C-alpha cells in the first residue's frame, strides 16, 4: 500500500484492547496500518487527513481473531444446508432450520429442481437426526425427491451420510455389501445410512465432492466471507489445507492477494500422521519453515503446525483420565483413541520446536493434554527456547494442575467454549458427568493460573461467531438454558481479550494485530452496539456491520 493519504475514522466508541489507552473516539489509518488512536485533534498532528464519519454510530474494536477454524467452513456452502438450527451463509442469507423430515425433503426437492444436469449428484449437509423427532430419515424419504438422480446428505457430525436408492444403485450398495457401516433394515436391505468414512466413500461422487469443494478457490472466499459477517478479520485454518498438494499454496496466494478478499488467513501446516516410525526425518518441518520464511504476505501467514492427538468428547474418542466416561455406548472400550502414539509425541514436537515453529496440538481430553504438555517439557529440556507459545487446542478437560504446568512452561490454551452451549447438557448427563462438565472449558482457571488463552468455534463444527463464543465463555449457558459451572465464567473484558489480543498472541501475530494502536494493521470489527453496554446475556445478539481489513471496509452479507 503506497497510499500516503491519511484517513481518520470517528466512532461512537473505539475499544482498543490496549490497556494503556483502552478507549478512544478516533483512529487514523495510512495505507493498511494504524497511524494513531485518540481524538481527531491528537491525530491531526500527522498532517492532512480525510475525515470519515461512516462509523460515527458504530463501535470499533480490533478485528476478532479466530485461531481455530477450518476452510471446510467455506466449502460446505457449495451445498444446500438441511440442519436443525437457522444458519447464515457467507452471503448473509439465513437458511431456516429444517425441523422435521418433511422440511428436509421440501428443501432438497427445491434444490433438486435448480440442478440442470440430470446426472449431477445432489449433495447437502448439516443433517442432525438427534433433533428430528419420530422416524429416522432414510433412503425412502430421499426417494421422494428423485429416483433418477443420486442424492447424498452429509450429517452435521461428519461421521454419517444418508443417500437415496439411486445413489445406492449406482454405487453397487445392496444387501450383500459387506462394508461395516452400511446400515441395513430388518430385512437385510441397506436403508441408505452410511456410517464412517469407509462406508461413506462407497457413495460415488458424494463424499468425495466435499473434499473437492474444500480445495476449491470458492471455499477460500466463502470462508473469509463467513469471517467478515461475524467481525473476524484473521482466521486460522488449522491443518485442513493439504499444503503438500500441488496448487494449494498458489490458490491461497491468489485469494488473499485480492484486495477484496476480506480476511487474513493463517494456514497451519497439518502434521501428516502418516505413522512414520523413523526418528530422524520429518519432511513437514522444512515445509513449515519454508512457508514461514519465504511465502508470507500481509494477508497470508504461516509458522503454526497443527497436531491431532485424540478424538472428541461427544464421540467418546477423547483420551480422558480416570474415571473416564459416565455412560459410554455399549461396546465402548472405556477410553478414547490416540491419533499419534504418545511416546512419539516428544520427538515430533521437538522437531518443530527446534525449527522455531509453534505447535498447536488438538487435545480434547486431559490425558491427551498431559501427554502434549510433557512432550513440550521434554522438547524444552532438549532445546531451551523462550516464548515458543505452543498451544493446547480445544483444551476442554485440562485440569488446574495442568494449567499450572502450562504456565510454568510458557504454553497457551485455545478453549472450545462453544461446547458449553452445543453439547454441555450431554457432557453433564452422559460423557464426563456433572462435576467434570462444570469444570470443562475452564477459562476462569486458565486466567487464574496465568495461561494466555483464546476461545474458538472450530467452524464448521459449530458456526463461526466470536461474539457468540465470547457469550459462551461469559455466561456458560447450555442449549437447555442451565448455567454449567458458574465458577468458570469470565468477564466480558477478559472474553474480548481472548477473542482479539490473546488469540493473536498464540498465532504469533500480536505485534501486528489484536489491538488498535499505532503501527498495527488497520483491522477492525464494526459493531452496531457496545459489548460493554449490553447485558452479558445479549453479547451474542450484537449485530455486526462488517469489518475493516488493512484499511479496506467489508460489509457483512455482501458478495
Amino acid at each position: 500500500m503506497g497510499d500516503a493519504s491519511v484517513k481518520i475514522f470517528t466512532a461512537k466508541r473505539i475499544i482498543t484492547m490496549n490497556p494503556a489507552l483502552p478507549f478512544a473516539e478516533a483512529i487514523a489509518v495510512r495505507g493498511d496500518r494504524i497511524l494513531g488512536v485518540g481524538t481527531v485533534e491528537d491525530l491531526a498532528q500527522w498532517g492532512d487527513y480525510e475525515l470519515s464519519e461512516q462509523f460515527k454510530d458504530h463501535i470499533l474494536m480490533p478485528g476478532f481473531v479466530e485461531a481455530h477454524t477450518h476452510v471446510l467452513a467455506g466449502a460446505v456452502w457449495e451445498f444446500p444446508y438441511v440442519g436443525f438450527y437457522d444458519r447464515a451463509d457467507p452471503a448473509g442469507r439465513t437458511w431456516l432450520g429444517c425441523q422435521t423430515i418433511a422440511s428436509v425433503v421440501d428443501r432438497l426437492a427445491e434444490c433438486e429442481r435448480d440442478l440442470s444436469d440430470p446426472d449431477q449428484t445432489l449433495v447437502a449437509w448439516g443433517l442432525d437426526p438427534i433433533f428430528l423427532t419420530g422416524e429416522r430419515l432414510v433412503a425412502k424419504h430421499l426417494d421422494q425427491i428423485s429416483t433418477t438422480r443420486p442424492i447424498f446428505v452429509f450429517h452435521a457430525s461428519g461421521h454419517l451420510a444418508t443417500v437415496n436408492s439411486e445413489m445406492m444403485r449406482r454405487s453397487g450398495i445392496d444387501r450383500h455389501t459387506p462394508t461395516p457401516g452400511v446400515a441395513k433394515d430388518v430385512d437385510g436391505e441397506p436403508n441408505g445410512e452410511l456410517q464412517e468414512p469407509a462406508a461413506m466413500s462407497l457413495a460415488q461422487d458424494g463424499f468425495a465432492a466435499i473434499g473437492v469443494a474444500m480445495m476449491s478457490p470458492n471455499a477460500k472466499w466463502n470462508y473469509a466471507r463467513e469471517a467478515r459477517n461475524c467481525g473476524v478479520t484473521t482466521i486460522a485454518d488449522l491443518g485442513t489445507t493439504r499444503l503438500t498438494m500441488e496448487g494449494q499454496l498458489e490458490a491461497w496466494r491468489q485469494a488473499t492477494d485480492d484486495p477484496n478478499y476480506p480476511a487474513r488467513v493463517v494456514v497451519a501446516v497439518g502434521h501428516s500422521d502418516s505413522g512414520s516410525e523413523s526418528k530422524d526425518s520429518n519432511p513437514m518441518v522444512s515445509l513449515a519453515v519454508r512457508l514461514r520464511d519465504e511465502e508470507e504476505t500481509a494477508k497470508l501467514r504461516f509458522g503454526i503446525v497443527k497436531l491431532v492427538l485424540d478424538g472428541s468428547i461427544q464421540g467418546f474418542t477423547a483420551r480422558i483420565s480416570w474415571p473416564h466416561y459416565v455412560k459410554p455406548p455399549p461396546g465402548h472400550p472405556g477410553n478414547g483413541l490416540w491419533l499419534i502414539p504418545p511416546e512419539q509425541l516428544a520427538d515430533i514436537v521437538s522437531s518443530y520446536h527446534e525449527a522455531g515453529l509453534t505447535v498447536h496440538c488438538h487435545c480434547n481430553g486431559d490425558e491427551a493434554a498431559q501427554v502434549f504438555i510433557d512432550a513440550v517439557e521434554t522438547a524444552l529440556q532438549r532445546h531451551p527456547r523462550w516464548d515458543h507459545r505452543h498451544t493446547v487446542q480445544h483444551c476442554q478437560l485440562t485440569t488446574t494442575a495442568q494449567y499450572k504446568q502450562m504456565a510454568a512452561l510458557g504454553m497457551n490454551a485455545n478453549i472450545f467454549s462453544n461446547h458449553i452451549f452445543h453439547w454441555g447438557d450431554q457432557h453433564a448427563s452422559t460423557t464426563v458427568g456433572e462435576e467434570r462438565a462444570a469444570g470443562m472449558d475452564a477459562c476462569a482457571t486458565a486466567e487464574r493460573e496465568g495461561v494466555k488463552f483464546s476461545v474458538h468455534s472450530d467452524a464448521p463444527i459449530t458456526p463461526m461467531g466470536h461474539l457468540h463464543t465470547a457469550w459462551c465463555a461469559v455466561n456458560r449457558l447450555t442449549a437447555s438454558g442451565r448455567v454449567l459451572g458458574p465458577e468458570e465464567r469470565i468477564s466480558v473484558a477478559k472474553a474480548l481479550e481472548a477473542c482479539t489480543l490473546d488469540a493473536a498472541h498464540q498465532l504469533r501475530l500480536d505485534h501486528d494485530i489484536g489491538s488498535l494502536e499505532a503501527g498495527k494493521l488497520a483491522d477492525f470489527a464494526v459493531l452496531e452496539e457496545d459489548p460493554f453496554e449490553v447485558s452479558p446475556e445479549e453479547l451474542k445478539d450484537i449485530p455486526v456491520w462488517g469489518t475493516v481489513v488493512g484499511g479496506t471496509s467489508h460489509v457483512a452479507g455482501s458478495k
Partner: protein
Amino acid sequence: MEPSEGLMEVSVIGGYLGAGKTTLVNHILRQASERVAVMVNDFGEINIDQALIDSRSENTISLTNGCICCSLVDGFVSALESVMSFRPKPTRLVIEASGVADPGAVAAYGHGPGLALDAVVVVTDAVRLCEQVADPLIGQTVASQIDAADVIVLNKIDLADNLIAAKTELARLNPDALLAYASHAEVNLDLLFGREIVRKSDPTSQVGTFESRSHESTQPIPRAALEALVENLPPEIQRVKGIVRLAEAPHVAMVFQLVGRNWELRALADRKNSPDGNRLVVIGPKGSIPMQWDDALSSGN
C-alpha cells in the same frame, strides 16, 4: 479358476509402534509369489535390494518381481488410486496401518469397489506385549488392535524371555485368531494370505509344514451344512477359504473365509465372473485334516 476374478484381495497389517509391521512388509515384498501392492507409511523404512528396484517415483517404487510399493504420504484415497491404476493390475493389496490405528477400521475400506477383504494381520512384539497391554496410556489401544486381528503374528520370539506370558495374554485378548510365531517377521505367507491356498490344485498339496485339501461340488449348500462343517473342524485347523452357493440364495456366489475361529460369508463382489458350484480349500498343520473333513457338505445335500 481364480476366486474373485478381477478383484484385489486386501490384507491389512496393524500393530503398535515398533512391533515389526514394516519388517513384515519387507518380508512380503521379498517372498510374494503374486503381484502385491503395498501401501506403507514411510518409504525410508522400506528395505529393498537395489537390484530388485525396477523404477521409482516420488510416491511409488516398482519392483522387478511385479510388486509395487506406494507411500501413504498423500493419504489413503490417493494411494489407492495409484494402486488401482497400476498395470498389470496387482492381485493383492497390503495396507500398513499406522501404529495407533484400529486395523479393523482400516479393513472397512477393504470392501470398496474392486476390493475384497481377506484378513486383518496384527503384528505384536513378544518382548513388550505384556508391558504394553498393562500400560495406562496405550494398553487399550494395543488390546483393541489385537482384538481386531484375524491373524496375530507374535514377532521377536527370538528375543523374548517369557513367551508363555505373551501367548497367554494373546489368548485372553483374542482366542479366535490364528497365531503365527516369527522372528524378524518371517511368516509363511500362505498363513497370511487366502488366495494362494485356493489356487492350489492338488487336493493334498504341501504348503511348508502345512497341508491342504479341497472340496468341489455343484449343488448349492444349505447354510446349516456349512455351519456343521465349521463346528466339526479339528481345532488345529486355522484356515478355510473358497466360494460357495448357498441353498438359501443359489444365484449369488459367496466367498467363505475362516481364519482362526472366525468365519464369514459375503457376496462375491464381481458377479459377472462368478464361478458356478462350490470350491473350498482347508489348510492345517500336516496330519491334522481328516479325509472326511467335508462330509457335512455332502450330507447336507
